[in-house]
């Protein structure tokens, strides 16, 4: 059977080779653990759902630069025309688009009296009409949608009713039902808003904000020369609607710029671009690093085998089986790998600590270095077994021949 002590003694005697391998493994573990932790963190961020039907909902911008246009009636006619187009499920005007990186947000005032008034968390503000819930495709889990008669037209300050996201309701009123609650857009008592519905999930525009899941929908059809329109249409119809919508709107009133057709799924891609980029670059790094480390490992094992050909031959002559030779090399490298892994794990935690203090990274989870070490053991096995099999086939006769 294997005797670990003599193996360790051998390792201690031939210093430089094992030490280099050790350093390499320590560094690899430290880098790979931290890199894969960052990758995992970014992927988790990117995995969050906006609550909308991202493949169906798109937005575009409509700019009425001709001051002779009556925007209010024009907008009503536009929306009606869009909803009638084939493929379109629903449409609304909006103040902002989820995951688009730009829009409106604010905190509100709540409380039963002026004295107990306090601010809520910030929330994204969607100004829209009774079609908005359906256009987003969000689930109304409590209360009701706006009635058509409740929709007001004009400035944001007109709003009276609100539909809020579950996250915002929970953050603001806790376990209490949000339906029927009053919140104020101004100071306490100023511009009251009554909550009439709660949607399961609706994200705002800023994916790096702490209040991404806080949203409110307010019952105002904004009137502005510059309008954002949200359309929900069957998947795959965007290409043809990109032509059809400007055609039908320009037929009615040509003095408008209509552009910027973008699916929410495309906004998602753009807004998470940096995270995806980071995750991609780090993944490339991890893969290459593991490749380099295992190639280096295999190279060192090959070198060791060559150097110890005679010794291996002697062992074989003394009755060592092929399996014994392979396990000799495996155990030798496992020892280096485990020692390097443990030190590397400590370095990884230290590096994580540094990254955490220097940059806004969360604390490194221990599972990452552990999984990294386990993965390295597997790699070590592969990188050692391949050359070691060659060593095992060294003829015992080698020992008797002088070099």
């Amino acid at each position, binding site marked *: 059977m294997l005797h670990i002590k003599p193996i360790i003694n051998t390792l201690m005697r031939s210093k430089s080779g094992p030490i280099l391998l050790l350093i390499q493994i320590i560094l690899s573990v430290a880098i790979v653990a931290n*890199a894969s932790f960052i990758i995992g963190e970014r992927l988790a961020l990117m995995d969050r759902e906006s609550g909308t039907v991202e493949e169906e909902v798109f937005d575009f911008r409509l700019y009425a630069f001709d001051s002779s246009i009556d925007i209010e009636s024009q907008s009503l006619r536009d929306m009606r025309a869009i909803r009638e187009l084939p493929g379109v499920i629903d449409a609304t005007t909006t103040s902002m688009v989820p995951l688009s990186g730009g829009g409106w947000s604010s905190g509100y005032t709540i409380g039963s009296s002026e004295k107990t008034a306090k601010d809520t968390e910030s929330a994204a503000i969607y100004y829209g009409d009774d079609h908005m819930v359906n256009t987003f495709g969000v689930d109304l889990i409590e209360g009701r949608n706006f009635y058509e008669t409740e929709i007001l037209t004009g400035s944001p300050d007109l709003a009276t009713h609100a539909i809020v996201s579950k996250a915002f309701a929970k953050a603001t009123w806790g376990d209490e039902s949000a339906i029927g609650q009053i919140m104020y857009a101004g100071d306490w008592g100023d511009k009251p808003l009554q909550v009439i519905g709660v949607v399961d999930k609706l994200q705002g525009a800023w994916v790096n904000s702490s209040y991404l899941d806080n949203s409110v929908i307010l019952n105002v059809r904004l009137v502005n020369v510059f309008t954002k329109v949200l359309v929900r249409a069957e998947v795959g119809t965007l290409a043809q609607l990109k032509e059809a919508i400007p055609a039908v709107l320009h037929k009615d009133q040509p*003095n408008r710029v209509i552009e910027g057709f973008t699916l929410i799924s495309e906004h998602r891609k753009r807004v998470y671009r940096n995270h995806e980029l980071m995750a991609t670059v780090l993944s490339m790094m991890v893969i290459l690093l593991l490749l380099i480390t295992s190639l280096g490992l295999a190279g060192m094992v090959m070198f060791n085998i060559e150097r110890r050909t005679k010794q291996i031959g002697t062992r074989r002559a003394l009755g060592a089986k092929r399996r014994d030779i392979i396990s000799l090399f495996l155990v030798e490298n496992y020892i280096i790998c485990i020692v390097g892994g443990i030190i590397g794990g400590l370095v990884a935690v230290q590096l994580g600590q540094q990254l955490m203090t220097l940059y806004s990274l969360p604390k490194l989870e221990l599972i990452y270095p552990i999984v990294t070490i386990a993965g390295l053991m597997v790699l070590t096995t592969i990188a050692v077994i391949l050359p070691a099999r060659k060593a095992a086939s060294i003829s015992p006769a080698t020992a008797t021949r002088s070099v």
Partner: protein
Amino acid sequence: MFFYYLDLAWRSIKKTPLLSLLMVFAISIGISTTITTLNVYQLMSVNPAGERSDKLIAVQLWSQGKDAWKEFNAQVTYQDAFNLRKSDLPVRQTAMFVTGLAIQTEDADFSPLLETVRVTDSDFFGMFSVPFLYGGAWDKSVDTEAAYQVVINEEINKQLFSGENSVGKTLFLDSKPYQVVGVIKTWNPSPQYYDVTTGAFKDSTQLFIPFSLAPIEEFQSWGNNQSWKRESMDTYSDRLNSEMHWIQFWAEVTDDKQRDEYAQWLTRYVEQQQLLGRFDSPEAGAQLSNVAQWLDLNEVVPEDNKILVGLSALFLLVCLVNMLGLLLAKFLKRAPEVGVRRAIGASRNQIFAQHMVEVGLIGFCGGVLGLIWAWGSLSMLSARFDLEESLTHLDPSMWIIAPTIAICAALIAGIYPAWRICSTNPSVHLKSQ
């Protein structure tokens, strides 16, 4: 002797192609990740203002109330910008924001374009060294007496006026006629240091119109608008009189002395405003930053990038350790030959030099290969992520930096193996066959 060593190095590389390839591969991968991240870092951390960096001053005011933001906002309110413009201390100064307008020409068939437009003062062009192709900025008097004038860039000029000198011609913005007074050459400083509020790495606006037109034409702001106070903003004059931060303000000074004077002037301005009931926070005041400070303050180089540069440096270190091990193996295998060379008159230094040349050659190959990888990965990343060209082109300096890092790194890795081989006793290897 160098060429002799080079010849020997090349023979040695050819003799163990797999091992040599592995080493070149290892170092090239290390170099390519380092170069890729370093390249992006370098492009991001450029200060495009160059030697004018110290003269251009971004102005920030702590005008918010007691419980509002705990830092200076990057922008100022319209009323403050309006007041600051009246100071005659700075050599030049400009207030600005970005809006969007529909462009039309006298040609009725030209379908309207929606373009971002920078609303700014005549000093903008001089302060930020904007190069003109035709004409120039509007007259300074326009900054106070509004006039419908516009400066356009080369590209729009091509689109609208087929590239000819369009100074004096008319184009329509939101159906209003504007007279072209200047055409600028393509100008795209990266990072866009004069306005980092909506991202520092995007193309600059193509049209410029006078700031003095804002209250008349009521241009919407397409930039960041940040309020700390709940104010109703039904009309444009509400907006102009509000405490909302949405205007960028820059001043140019000749030297530090003038900068100090300007700072004092701003302190007096804040005190004066406090008498009017504004600036009621104890931290109220002004902050001046030159371009370098401004880029730093706004964290133009993202954290991610710094992390990547750090990690790739560690990566390079792993590649070096890897290479060190392989070199050691390779060199020690050659001990008998070295023994012969030593016996017939090579000194330790000569053997050391011979091996360092070989390592340097491997490093050089690794550097060149790494540069190719880096170029490949940059173009792949930019295609995959639709990145700004200004961030992904391989900076020419990298053609020097990459091989230099590679050779230096390889030489460092080679010192120990080369020392080992030149310090072994030659006689040991002469007896054996």
